[in-house]
Each structure stands twice: as C-alpha cells, then as structure tokens.
C-alpha cells in the first residue's frame, strides 16, 4: 500500500480516536435538575429516648453490687426508633422509621432524606416521634418556604434548637 495513503489512513484513525474522546468527555450534557425543581433535604443526627424509663434501684439490689458498680438508677441502653414525617402542602414527602444502630440499638440515628420538589411557595410540616413511651409526636414544626430553582432546602434538628429550615 502507498505510504502516503497509509499515513492518511492512520491520520483518520487518530482523528476518530480523539473525536470519541472529544465528544464523550463532555457530551451529551446531562440534565440533573430540571428548571422547575428544588431539593428538600432532611439531615440530622438524633438519639431516640430510652425505650424504658430509668428505674430507681432498691437498697437490696445495690447491696448485691460491688461498691464501684452501685448507681441510683438502672437505665436501659436500648433507644427508641425515630419516626419522622414531613408533609409539603398537606402531601406526605417522607414517612420513615429508623431503628437505632448498634448491637444494643443504643446509637444515634443518622437521617438523610432528599427529594426533588416543585419550585414555589410551600407549606411544610415536620414531625418526629423519638420515644416509644410517648403517645404522639414529640416534636413538630410548621414552616412556610419559597423554593427557587435548584435551591437546596435543608431541614435539620437538634433537641435544644428544634427544627431549622435553611
């Protein structure tokens, strides 16, 4: 085969090679977030209350223990699951129950839920029940928020501050 023609064919091969890299290194563009959507994220770490109330130990029970083991209250390690509900404009977004991690189910629960929602003004209601001994939700909060395109609304929670919408 003619050397010049062969070099030409090689050039075509290299061109095809870089064309594949050219295109797939950035195209086709991927639409991750539509223009009319925002993201609601519920993220926090929370420990449920113990499943049973602490019990005061009797003197007889304390006498059976070595001195360094004696304590007034006997508390169970197991914690309550966290039941979370988030409503948006009356519709439920999340309704989840998380069991505490750990062999004794005594760890804090890490919560991270996210969902794409329509932009605009919304009315949020969030509830948490963190004790099996409670009859109803232990924390509840209502919040109104206007969501812009692609905005991330983060709902966090701490015992002292309650729910925070950012």
């Amino acid at each position: 085969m003619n050397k010049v023609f062969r070099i030409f064919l090689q050039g075509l091969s290299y061109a095809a090679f870089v064309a594949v890299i050219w295109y797939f290194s950035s195209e086709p563009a991927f639409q991750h977030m539509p223009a009319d959507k925002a993201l609601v994220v519920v993220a926090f770490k929370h420990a449920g209350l113990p499943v049973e109330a602490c019990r005061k130990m009797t003197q007889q029970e304390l006498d059976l223990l070595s001195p360094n083991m004696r304590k007034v209250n006997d508390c169970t390690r197991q914690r309550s699951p966290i039941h979370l509900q988030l409503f948006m404009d009356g519709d439920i977004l999340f309704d989840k129950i998380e069991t505490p991690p750990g062999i004794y189910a005594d760890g804090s629960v890490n919560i991270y839920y996210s969902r794409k929602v329509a932009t605009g003004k919304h009315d949020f209601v969030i509830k948490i029940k963190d004790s099996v001994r409670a009859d109803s939700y232990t924390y509840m909060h209502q919040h109104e928020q206007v969501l812009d395109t692609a905005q991330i609304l983060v709902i966090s929670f701490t015992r002292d501050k309650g729910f925070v919408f950012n």
Partner: protein
Amino acid sequence: MRINPLRRLYIAAETWFKYSFAELNPMYHLGTLTFFFFWIILVSGIYLFVPFKGSVHGAYASVEWMTHQQWYLAGIMRSLHRYASDAAIITILLHLFRELALVRYQGTRWYSWVTGLPLLWMIIPLGITGYWLVWDQLAQYIAMGSAHLFDAIPIFFGSMASNFLPSQMSDRFFTLIMFLHLLGQPLILLFALWLHVRRLSNVNIMPPRGLAIGSFIALIILSLIKPALSHPPADLSTVPQSLNLDWFYLNIYPLLDYWTAGQVWLLTLVITLLLIFLPWFFPKRAKATAVVDLENCDGCKQCFEDCPYDAITVQARTDGKKHSHEVVVDPALCTSCGICVGGCHSANPFRKAEKILRPGIDMPDFPAHELRKRTLAAIDSMQGKHKILVFGCDHGYAVERIKTDNTRGISLYCSGMLPPTMIRFALRKGADGVLVSGCRSNDCYNRFGERWTEMRILSDRQPSLRAGVDHRHIISQGAGPIDRKALEKSVQRLRKKLIKLEPKASE
C-alpha cells in the same frame, strides 16, 4: 473450524488497522498504549500538583488559574491529564473486548482475565477523585452521588452525604480525597497492574515509538483545540442543573436519578461477577500440558527463555547426568501452546537413533513424533510439481482447508511449536516449499509463537534454521481465521517462486 460471531466481528473490524498501521496495529498494543497514557497522566499530574491548592476554597481558583492564566502550559497539562485518562479507558475497554472476542481468557489464562477486570474498577474511582478535586459543580454532583452510593453500603454508619450540606464541607475531607487521588489509588493500581502481568514473561510496557508519538500528538492537538474546562464553582446551597459529564468515568451517576443506590450497586456487582466468572462459563477443552523428558533434556534453558507464560523454571539437575540444569513445567501455568517444543534442540526430526522422536520437552497430545509422522504423510500424499506444505496454527486460518493436489496443511497448537528443523526435514523429504502460517502478524494467540518462529527461521533466535537451507523455498505469512485469501495468495506467491527456481532445482 467454526468461528464465533464476536471473534469474526472483531477480526473484520481490526482489518482496518491492519491495512492502515501494518506492523504498528494499535489493536496489538492496547495494553502498552494504556501504560503509555498512564505515563502522560503521571507526568501531567505531577506538574498540575505544583500550582494546585488543596483546599475547599483554594482548589477551584487554582485550577481556573491553570486553565486560563497559564493555558499554554498548565492548561495543556490539565487537558492532557484529562484526555489521556479518557484514552486509557478506551484502550482498556478495547483490550477487554479483544481478549473476550478472541477467547483469550480460558484455561490458565483466567488469571490475567480475573486480575485485569478489577483494574477497571480501580481506574474509574481514580478518575472520579480527580474530577472531585476541581471542586466545581461537577465535583459537587459526583461528591453527592458518591456519598449516596457509600451510604447505601450497610458497613458504613453515619451519613457521608451530610458532609456536603451547606457549610459542612471541610478541608479535612478534601485532604482525604487528595490523598486518595495522588497517592493511595495510584499505589494500589500499580500493585494491581503488577499482579495482572505477573504470570507473563517478557512483559512490555511501552508501545512502539510510532504509536506513542502518534497518540501523543493526537492528544496534544485535542488539548489545544478543546481545552479541558471547569463547570461553575461548587455551591452547596443549590443543586447543579445541567452537567457536561465525562461519560468515560461518570456514567454510573445519572443512574442514581432513576434507581436507588442499592440497585446501582447490584447492577455493577452483577456485571462484574458475570465478567469475572466468564472463564468458567466457557471452560477450555483441556489439553495435556508440556512434559519434560530428562533423558533427552540437556538443560539448555531455551524452553525457559521461550515460554510466554513463565510456566517453565530451571533447577539443578536431579538425575545425576552431566548437564548442570534441568527444566520443570508448572502445569498450573502451562497453556499447552507447545512453543517450548519448537524451541527444543532435541525436537529434531532428523534424529535417527530412536524410532520414536522424543524431545526434551513435548506435548503429550501432539508429540513431536506425531508432527514428524504427519509431515511425512502430508508430503507423501501430495502429487505433481511444486509441492507446498503449510504449517499453520489452531488459532489462525484452518490450513487443512487449502488442500489441493500439491498443497497440504498441518495445523499446530501454535506456529511457535514448529521446530525449525522440521522445515528442513520437510524440504529434504520432498516438499518443494514450506509456508509457515499462524495468527496474524504480531497477533499471536500465545503472545510470542509467531515471533519466535520467524526469528528462528531468520537465525535470530535459537534453535535456528540451518544456514544451508535455501530460504527462497520458505515463506512466512500470518493469517487470521478469516484470512483465507491472504493465505492462498501466499501459496501462489511461493509456487511462482518455486517455478522460477525450477531450472536451478533441476541442475
């Protein structure tokens, strides 16, 4: 011989490169090309590391500086770094497809197959952490996606995704990613690459100079006309909307918009396991491995030098003979290619001392004695003038098919199994010409069979074809399974040569 459709498709597609690149066919150098791209990635990466600021607030600005202020050097380095990484994925995928299509994963070659696949899963995260370091919206997107993937693994407690909430991202996490990308992942990859080629001998990690120069120039041109750019800086208070993904590395992330992280993991796992266990889905028909006959082995070590799979070792003599060494075959590593027999001095068909030809190393299912017998039978069965005997291999064109009155073909396990003395023997016993075929040139199924045979014929490697043999009666022509025409042309070419030589032969 029935050729599987995948193999036929691959060989047909490869023909383009065979004609345009000839000896430099890039499909035969995919592994070394991948190594070459790694060299580019390494050198450009070291350069980029110097001006790079490894912090959440400094990273993006420093990459932008490289891209726009020092575009002529750091910018090109960045583009080279990215495009060479993409090129490596292409060559790896082609390498994988090639080995799959040519069924080069069966038998004892399972090891290279099984150790090769995880390399892909190591390289992709290396690319991902690289994109992460730019800390633009694309980095933010893959950080969130990766976090969701990791959070789905039940061994991790806590939520990794929480690290990427507004004002949560810390330099500490960024430092971890830097460590992974710059040191941790490359070191693991290097070790895995060593494992991948551990059972191969004469490993080459550099492509031919022409290919290296060509691909480097191609990448430079691409870097100049389409410099790698960043997305807008990461903003953890908003979700990135439209993204220009590098589909070579980030193809898994869009799935997370439709599937759960667990489903994505499942898909990845299923594909990986299916590919990994492929050698056992289609097991190779077992051939007996090479066997050493110490009675006839003088410990010359040629088979040890020739074995492409490091299946032969040399040790001190154990039978008390005067020779200092003997060879030992490890059946677990032997692929039964027979190349060792072709390199054995004692596989000489002229040996008359014994009725049965017994070389120092032999293939029990197709011994050298049987090859001598078939050679004689083929010559005896030919009629007329200009008898041509074609030695081919089981992985190239099925040479038995070119049978005519004065042409016969004998297929070997590999063309490298042919002792050069067998060529002389055939010419002496009545063949007018010998054509040595095999796989396509430079594409030996057993790595070096075709090359060693060619070198032996040209007296560049031991055992060499005796000087007195008239090379005008011999032709070498690689022919893949679909290259019937090329092989027939070579037979005709040899026959024409023989006709021209006729008066001389009659003198």
